[in-house]
């Protein structure tokens, strides 16, 4: 991903009010990490497992810092139990920043990524988690702001799935 795109994502998160990011890095969007760390408005927390990312973000969110979890698409599978019991059943708002690998628009798609990619959206649908697929930088900040507004309105997780231009 171009650095300009990473800067737009980070700028969009900041403008939308996100101030806490738990993360387990991957390769497609990882250019956002140094920018998140450099910007003093984010508390950035590395985790060992996406489930843990969801539970820590839940605590941060309930403690008053609008929170996000940055993960690879596979992280949705790994964290699905905590997304269900904390995100949905308890009702905790958080933004899922998901590198949507294995999509039709994933510029690095291979046999490794395609199968998890194919099942990612059905997993989110089965959890009834609202999501938006982003494949271009057009209106990026507005879409991030809209997703954050949605997560606060329904007090549940909302996912942004980054693919296309973001996976170059």
């Amino acid at each position, binding site marked *: 991903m171009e650095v300009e795109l990473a800067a737009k994502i980070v700028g969009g998160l900041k403008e939308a009010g996100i101030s*806490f990011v*738990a993360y387990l890095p991957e390769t497609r969007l990882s250019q956002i990490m140094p920018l998140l760390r450099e910007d003093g408005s984010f*508390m950035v*927390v*590395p*985790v*060992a*497992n996406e*489930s*843990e990312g*969801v*539970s*820590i*973000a*839940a*605590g*941060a*969110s*309930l*403690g*008053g*810092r609008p*929170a996000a979890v940055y993960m690879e698409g596979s992280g949705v599978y790994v964290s699905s*139990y*905590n997304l269900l*019991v*904390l995100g949905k*059943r*308890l*009702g*905790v708002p958080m933004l899922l920043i998901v590198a949507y690998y294995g999509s039709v628009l994933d510029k690095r798609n291979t046999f490794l990524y395609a199968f998890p990619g194919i099942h990612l959206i059905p997993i989110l649908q089965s959890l009834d988690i609202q999501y938006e697929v982003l494949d271009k930088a057009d209106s990026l900040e507005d879409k991030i702001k809209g997703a954050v*507004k*949605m997560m*606060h*309105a*329904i*007090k549940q997780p909302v996912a942004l799935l980054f693919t296309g231009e973001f996976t170059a």
Partner: protein
Amino acid sequence: MTRSECFEFLAPLIKDQLVIGSLSGQRVEWGSLSRHEGNLLVAAMGAALGVGVGLALVLPHRKVIALESDGSLLLSLYNLPTLGNLNPSNLAVFVFDNEVYSGTRISEPSATAGKTDLAGVARSCGIERATTVRDLESFKREATKALEENVLRFVVCKVDKTTGHRQIQRPNEDLWEHKYRFVRYLERTEGKEIFKGRG
């Protein structure tokens, strides 16, 4: 030593601390002994410690207490390396380890009935003050230090296998109501808005 005896000692000491609990008998017993608005009993295995870490990080001036169990922690051991690295000084973790899976009845032994030493795992993950207590006096000593000192503590409490919680009436409060009570308490005591009605 029973978990209930530990809770009977701990509950009256809770003032403005935040208490995050996990599932099963622990949730029922703590919920019956403590009506503290700063209780958040998430009712899920493997989630309480992470929620406690998140709260401790964003509210560094508040003491946060995570109540875990052996089964719940074994399900989420990935929390320990992160906890060791982050080292939140305002967090105290109590793991009530009865060495068995015991929801509605005493079931199968957990790994801690075998060779697994959870305090040893925690220490190897960098949590320096990780210890195991096996009697009530030791628990009282560790619990008192955990509440008074501003340092990460991880206390594995070896407790008897009991099903006393089955005799306790369940609270008539669903999880969203429970969450709102907790968040409104935090809003009031922290003087800030957390949940905006309009989103």
